[in-house]
Structures are given as structure tokens and as C-alpha cells.
């Protein structure tokens, strides 16, 4: 039985931050993080990036010390990731904002459209429909965050939340302003356009939800390894034959349908930005899949079947 010694150096200055004596060989990185945290209470485990090489990747919590390519005196490098916030917390804050902000405009709070229009309601049924759809979308997202999603990384840097909230909340306010405006003009093709949009909206929301459930089932037993998602009996998941990230495809579809429903340029702009952002994420994910799995289905494109 050999007990290990672990020294942890700062990744930049290489100064020794701590020296752990008598570490068990089968200690996990998680345990090492906890020990480091005891010495430096400021740096809680989620904030610690522990690596073998100053420029290397952060070690996962589950890695075991004796399986790492280190001698009995291990040298590890520490990098401070900055204040962290949990993904669930972030999503809850990000999605609750637009939900309530939209209501401020829907119910025409006096500070929005002036005192004359306060608390009035719109004569157009599509405005009520839009409110229902928008709220439904964000309530669904909140439910998924709490019950469905399984995150591979527990946290993200704190400054991201400011950036993300500005984006979601800002756009929600901007598009809600125009949809609920007293001078709002309903869609040019009337009921046909609205009905088409509603059906497309519901289909895409159902699709998006199905994909999220399917993805979360892949990690049912709490494993953090990546697996290839495959179509199931649910017809909405059959998009997996053609696309790596059908959840993004459906999401873009939802917003396109909302644009058609409201016929509002700010919504269109938001849809465009969502599309660009999700295409970037989808391409990333697609590349990761291709790298990790040799037998990855070749028919699949990142986000749009056959095209993108």
C-alpha cells in the first residue's frame, strides 16, 4: 500500500498552492477538490479546474489518482474558473424573466404605453393567442429545466448570466412591446395565417419536448458519458434520422411559427439570431459526435436535414 503525495501548483505562476500528504491511491479528483477547498475556502470545488498539464483539459471528478499518468508524487495544476452558478439556476432565472416581462406588456402596465392605454385589452384575438403561446413556451422550458434536462457540466461562470439575461429579457420586452401595442396590425392573411402558425407551433413544441425527453433518457442512470441518440417509437424523434440536434431544429421551427403568427419584425429578428446561435451549437455538437463515434450515421446533418 503506497500512499500518494499531491502537490497543486498555480497553472500560471507555478507557485505551490498546497501539498497534500498521505493521499489514498484510489482517491478521486472530486475528493482532491474537496481537500483543496478546505485549505482555500474561497475556491469551492465547482470553481476549481484541476489539470495534469498547465495548458491541458480539466480533469473530471470521477478520475482516480492512481489511474492517472503520475508518479507517487503527483503534480497537478489549478486554475480558478471564477464564480460559478449552477445550470439549473441560470435557466430558471433566464426563462422566468421573459414570462413575466411579456405579461407587463400584455396587461398594458401604465408605464409601457402611457396612462391612456393602461390596462386596456387588444381587440385582436391573435394578441391573446400570442400571449398564450409565448407563455406556454417559457413554462414548458421551465418544466423541462426542473424535470427533464440532465446537464453534463454542473456550473457555468457567473458573468454569463448577466449576458444571457440581457439577451432573453431584452428581446422578450422588445417583441412584447410591438405585439401588445394598441396600434398592432394583425397578420395580412388573417385566420389562415394564424391557424397555420398555431398548428406549426404545437407540432414544433411537441417535437422539441420529445427530443428533450429522448436525450434525457440516454442518461437515465446518471452516467455522464455521451451516447448516440437514436429515433424511438415517437414519430417526432424520427428527425434523428436526418439531424444531429433535432431539438434545435424544432426550436427554430417554434420561433418561425411565432413570427408567422404575429407578423412582427422584432420576432423575426429574434428568430434569426436564435437560428444563427443554434446552428453554431449544432455544428459543434455534430463535430463532437463525429469525433467520438466512428460509426456515426452519415446521413445526419447538424441542424437542417440535408442542408446545414
Amino acid at each position, binding site marked *: 500500500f503506497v500512499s500518494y503525495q499531491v502537490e497543486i501548483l498555480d497553472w500560471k505562476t507555478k507557485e505551490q498552492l498546497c501539498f497534500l500528504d498521505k493521499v489514498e491511491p484510489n482517491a478521486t479528483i472530486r475528493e482532491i477538490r474537496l481537500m483543496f477547498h478546505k485549505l482555500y475556502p474561497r475556491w469551492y470545488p465547482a470553481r476549481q479546474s484541476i489539470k*495534469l*498539464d498547465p495548458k*491541458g483539459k480539466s480533469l473530471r471528478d470521477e478520475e482516480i489518482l*492512481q*489511474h*492517472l*499518468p*503520475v*508518479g507517487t508524487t503527483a503534480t497537478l495544476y489549478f486554475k480558478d474558473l471564477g464564480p460559478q452558478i449552477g445550470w439549473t439556476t441560470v435557466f430558471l432565472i433566464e426563462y422566468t424573466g421573459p414570462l413575466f416581462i411579456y405579461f407587463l406588456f400584455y396587461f398594458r402596465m401604465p408605464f409601457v404605453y402611457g396612462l391612456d392605454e393602461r390596462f386596456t385589452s387588444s381587440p385582436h384575438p391573435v394578441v391573446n393567442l400570442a400571449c398564450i403561446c409565448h407563455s406556454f413556451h417559457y413554462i414548458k422550458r421551465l418544466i423541462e429545466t426542473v424535470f427533464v434536462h440532465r446537464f453534463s457540466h454542473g456550473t457555468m461562470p457567473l458573468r454569463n448570466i448577466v449576458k444571457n439575461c440581457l439577451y432573453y429579457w431584452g428581446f422578450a420586452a422588445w417583441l412584447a412591446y*410591438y*405585439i401588445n*401595442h394598441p*396600434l*398592432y*396590425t394583425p397578420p*395580412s392573411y388573417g385566420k389562415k395565417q394564424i391557424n397555420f402558425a398555431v398548428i406549426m407551433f404545437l407540432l414544433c413544441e411537441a417535437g422539441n419536448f420529445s427530443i428533450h425527453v429522448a436525450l434525457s433518457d440516454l442518461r437515465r442512470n446518471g452516467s455522464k458519458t455521451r451516447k448516440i441518440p437514436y429515433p424511438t417509437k415517437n414519430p417526432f424523434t424520427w428527425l434523428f434520422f436526418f439531424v444531429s440536434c433535432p431539438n434545435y431544429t424544432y426550436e427554430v421551427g417554434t420561433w418561425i411559427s411565432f413570427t408567422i403568427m*404575429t*407578423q*412582427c*419584425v*422584432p420576432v423575426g429578428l429574434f428568430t434569426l439570431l436564435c437560428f444563427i446561435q443554434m446552428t453554431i451549437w449544432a455544428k459543434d455538437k455534430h463535430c463532437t459526435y463525429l*469525433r467520438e463515434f466512428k460509426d456515426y450515421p452519415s446521413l445526419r446533418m447538424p441542424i437542417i436535414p440535408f442542408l446545414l
Partner: protein
Amino acid sequence: LQNPDIAITDNVLHFRAQGHGAKGDNIYEFQIEFLEPVEPKPVCRVTQRQLNITVQKKESNWWERLTKQEKRPLFLAPDFDRWLDESDAEMELKEKEEEKINKMKIESRVPKDPFKHLKKGYLIMYNLVQFLGFSWIFVNMTVRLFILGKDSFYDTFHTIADMMYFCQALAVMEIMNSLIGLVRSPLLPAVMQIFGRNFILFVVLGSLEEMQSKPVVFFIFYFWSIIEIFRYPYYMLSCIGIEWKPLTWLRYTAWIPLYPLGGLAEAVCIVQSIPIFSETGKFSLGLPNPLNVTIQFSFLLQVYLIALFLGVFVNFRHLYKQRKHHLGPKKRKMK
């Protein structure tokens, strides 16, 4: 190290040798079963302190780990100096590819292009036409300045605008030239400059009669034309392959006062135009409309103003780097 016995059978490296170690002379041996098939002939090099065994993979790809077994052998430690991650290797590959591309570029400068003379001719003509156009503008404005003095400011637009429209519209060709690779300069600064200038010329000045009789127009046109009468002849000569040192110096120095001044004149122009656009509602869209959006052109101009300052600042640094690169350290010593 004596009598090394190294062999690979069935993807397993067998090592056996006699060596002098910390505990005296002993026989050392180990075995490593590789994750994937490897070439059966290892290359060995022996030095005083160590023995290097190089084993080649049968297939060139990334291995998740070295050994077939999941647990890493205790005696095995990676040499991070030689560690190649996918990302590292991509960097190395990129560097190698860049070297290859550079070599190819150097080779491709040797003319094997049948259209080379045609392209040169076109570029020379383009630069000549622009030079003549801007010279006409510059000379015209200078003469009128001498004759009329300050009064020439007020109808600069009426006399000069047509030629300026022509030159700036033609300047869009510069974007094409950069895009199709006819010219080696980068695309983005050219796009930014052409877009910026044409926006001022066609949108802000062109659409508002009131702006056209303002004195700032004189300064904008004057600064633009002075920079161009140095830039275009320099390009013309470099197409032919001649370099006239004074012209080079002018081309890479005149912009230092002129470019910020031009930017300032453009900014003044925009600031003056904002109230007019507000009042007349030109290019603006109000509710109700079927797109359900309001566009306030005066607001967009204010945003553009910020972008203008950022753009001038960024471009200034780019031009300064370019200047250092082209004029070289000798010139600095002369000063």
C-alpha cells in the same frame, strides 16, 4: 543497458533487457498490449541513459488511451513535451499546411497565369480612372477655394457630387477585386471603407437637400480626395512594378492626419443630419404598419456614429501596422 530483446507480436510489445539500475544488475522486462493494431517492426535507438522505442500505428487516428486494458500501467507516464492532443496536432497540421501554402504562393508568383497581363491591365486602368477622377475633384475644389474663398463651401455638392458619385460607385469594384483575389489586400477594411463612405454620400447627403449646402460637405470631399490622390497612383505603379519612394512614403503617411480628420468630418455631417431625419421622418417607419415594427432612422444614425468612431479607431491601428510593415525601420532612423 545490454542485450535488449524487443519484439512486437499480436500488437503486444515485449521488452526484455539486462541493465544496471539502482539495485545493481538485473533483468528488466515489461509488456504493453496496444489499443489498436500497430506495425510489427519497432525502431529502437539506444543512448547512454535511455532506450527509445518508436512504434507506428497501423491506422493513423487518435487513440483514447495507449493500452488495450482500461487501467493505465503504473510504470507508464506520458512525456508531455512530446504529447500530441488532437488540438495540438491540429495546430501543428495547420502550421504545416500554412507552410505548404506559403511555399505554393511563392511558387505561384512565377507567372503561369494566361490572364496575368489582362488582370494587370484592368487594375492599372481602374486605378488610373480613379486617380483622374479624384484629381479632378481635388483640383476643382482647390481652384474654387482660391477664387471664391469660403463661399465655395456652400455649393461644393452641386459642382462636385456627380464626379464623386461616379468615383465612389466605381470604388465598389475594389470589393470585387479583393473578393475574387485579384488584389492581395484584405476584404473587411475595404468593405468597411466603401460602405461607410457610400452611406454618407448616397444616403445622408444624397437624400437630404438641406445637408447638401452645408460647409461640412467641402471638408468631407476634400479629405477623401487628398487621401485617394496618393493611394491610387501608388497602386498603379506597384502594378507595373515601379516603386517611387516619395510616393510610397506619402501614401503611408498622409493618412495619419487625413483619416481621422475625414472621420471627424463624417461624424459632424451625421450629427447635423440627425435632427433633419427626425423632423422629416425620412427612412423611418411608424406604427401602425403590417410589419409591426418602428424604425427611427435618427436612432440608427446615432448607433452608426458610435460604430464610426470604433471603426476609425480599429482601422487606424491596422493602417499603422501596415505602415510599419511597408516603410520599415530605416525610415524611423531617418526621422
